[in-house]
């Protein structure tokens, strides 16, 4: 921004130094002419001209020096940006290069092969993809309604004196490390699931749907999904609340003026208005849940099988990598297959995060335009 301003300033200065047209035909004879050259940063031979006053030479010298240092400054700063490009290239490059043996050998069929056999050198991603999406799905099904309703509570229903405190509390709790959630899951959620929730599910819904039946081990996709859901709620709720409070007051008051109750205002006016924000926050939550590692690793049971019931154990991409990568590196193809799994996770995360980012940026842009239009 500052750079832009300054460049404009320079060009204005250069423009001002142009001779008026009447003198122009003769100007190539004049020794103190090339002020334009100064502005472009090139020192010319004419600077040694005898007819030039000391004052002018001094001025020109300092001007050239300043321009040169500005240029160096400009380029030096650009190097800083280069680090980011380099880091991104490293992340993508390492994953691609190290995954290449597996990509080359299995091709696209890697995605839908469900065999994972290090001894026979057959690797496929299907089991882990399904496990990852199971955990993420359970987490989101649990988290989204709660998060959206909490966001409504924070933006519309909580008493004014409470809002600041509880919003901060929620944001702070979002920072509790994943490993603490995992430990909490082992100590508290797993016994709760094993002794109460899962037997209950098996005895009620489980009689009618195999999907809810099972052995009630405590560990499994249900526990992992619930804990990841708890972790994702603050993120989704905070982002949704941020888009809810952006809705112009006029819209809300118009709804009241038409005689709606508070619930009708919220349901028919506010919620439809923040659908892009909700989608954006859910996408961000999806990205967060997808990459969740330690809590899932501790809770999912780590067994490479495709879950058929909500009580089954499973394996996700990230927990597989964290659990077995250090054994896998002794075998190039084994480690390449694991990194290809990581690459899939990386690509999904990047796509998901770009989508969420663009949606939320667009929403913010829309808000700015709206508030300008509304005065």
């Amino acid at each position: 921004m500052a750079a832009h301003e300054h460049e404009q300033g320079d060009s204005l200065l250069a423009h001002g130094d142009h001779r008026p047209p009447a003198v122009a035909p003769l100007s190539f004879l004049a020794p103190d002419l090339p002020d334009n050259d100064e502005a472009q940063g090139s020192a010319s031979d004419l600077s040694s001209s005898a007819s030039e006053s000391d004052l002018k030479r001094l001025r020109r010298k300092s001007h050239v020096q300043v321009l040169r240092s500005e240029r160096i400054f400009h380029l030096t700063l650009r190097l800083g940006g280069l680090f980011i490009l380099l880091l991104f290239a490293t992340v993508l490059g390492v994953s691609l290069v190290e995954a290449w043996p597996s990509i080359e050998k299995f091709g696209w069929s890697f995605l839908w092969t469900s065999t994972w056999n290090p001894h026979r050198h057959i690797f496929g991603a299907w089991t882990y993809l399904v496990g990852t999406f199971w955990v993420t799905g359970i987490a989101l099904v649990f988290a989204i309604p709660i998060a959206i309703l909490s966001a409504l509570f924070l933006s519309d229903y909580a008493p004014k004196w409470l809002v600041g405190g509880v919003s901060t509390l929620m944001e702070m709790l979002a920072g509790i490390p994943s490993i603490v959630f995992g430990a909490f899951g082992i100590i508290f959620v797993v016994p709760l699931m094993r002794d109460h929730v899962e037997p209950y599910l098996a005895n009620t819904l489980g009689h009618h749907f195999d999907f809810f039946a099972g052995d009630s081990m405590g560990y499994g996709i249900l526990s992992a999904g619930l804990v990841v859901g708890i972790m994702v709620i603050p993120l989704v709720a905070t982002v949704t609340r941020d888009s809810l409070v952006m809705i112009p007051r006029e819209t809300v008051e118009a709804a009241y003026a038409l005689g709606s109750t508070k619930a009708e205002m919220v349901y028919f006016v506010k919620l439809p208005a923040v659908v892009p924000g909700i989608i954006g926050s859910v996408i961000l939550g999806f990205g967060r849940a997808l990459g969740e590692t330690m809590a899932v690793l501790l809770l999912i049971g780590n067994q490479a099988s495709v879950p058929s019931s909500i009580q089954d154990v499973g394996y996700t991409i990230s927990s597989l990598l964290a659990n077995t990568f250090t054994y896998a590196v002794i075998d190039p193809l084994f480690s390449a297959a694991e990194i290809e799994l990581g690459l899939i996770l990386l690509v999904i995360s990047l796509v998901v995060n770009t989508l969420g980012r663009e949606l939320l940026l667009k929403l913010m842009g829309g808000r700015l335009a709206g508030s300008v239009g509304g005065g």
Partner: protein
Amino acid sequence: MAEERLPEKGLSLYRQSRNLILGGLTGLAFLVAVTPLLAIIYIAYDRGKDALSLSFITSMPSGFPVGIEGGILNGIAGSLILIVLASLLSVPVGVWAGLYLWDQGHTRLAGVTRLLSDLLLGVPSVIWGVVGFYVFSTNTGWGFHWGFSGLAAGLTLGFIMIPIVTRVTEQALRDVPRSYIEGALALGATRFQVMRDLAIPAAITGIGTGILLGVLNVLGQTAPLVFTNYYNTGIPHSLVGSNGSVGDLAMQIFIYIHEPSKALHVKAMAAALVLTVIVLLLDMGIRLLSWGSRKYARKV
């Protein structure tokens, strides 16, 4: 607000009850959202209180299996080492990149850089672990061949911190009023002088907040350490090579909770409480800092 005084008389019972139900649901959902988060802190305290004492944070783990007696000093020291190493890499690089995005943010290259920096924020931590493993730890192929070591883990955490520091630095610099910068430029200051004497001093609290935010983010990172450092029950003399691993609070919790031992689980919950308290205190500090700087900015 006006809506609190709305006359509810004359509404049909259906509309009245609908109104109440949605209000009740939101409150209930909020409780469901916050209760587990608070329960985590309570349960960590409840299950870990037998191990909690001052000596828990000032003594090294001992006994068999290691950790069944003693404390978590190795983890605290290791986490500190890792944070210092991560900051040494990410603060200069992140601030530098943030300055670039602030100064030349309108260019296309800067737009790409900003997008990539934001995307790096979303890279899963296992991927950072894999990248750190191949860049720093592995003993075959290319890379630094540092083994499972504190330096490898610290710099990997530094990678994670860079985009955070970059983004917050850029934001803090953008919050410096334009009029200041234009005034300085009009007085003939060079852009370097504007940056050194005006923008950075004005944004220094914001930049500090960004650095602390980065530290907060890597403090609880466990997955990258599994790939680059693992764990050490002591404090190493060197940060590189086969004996260069450091302890770490998060790894300590992970290892203790993975053991089939009730006593170690108690230690794990106590360590989890310590880690959570550190994280929450740091978070609170960041909030106070940014609140203070906003108040200061408003006064100016």
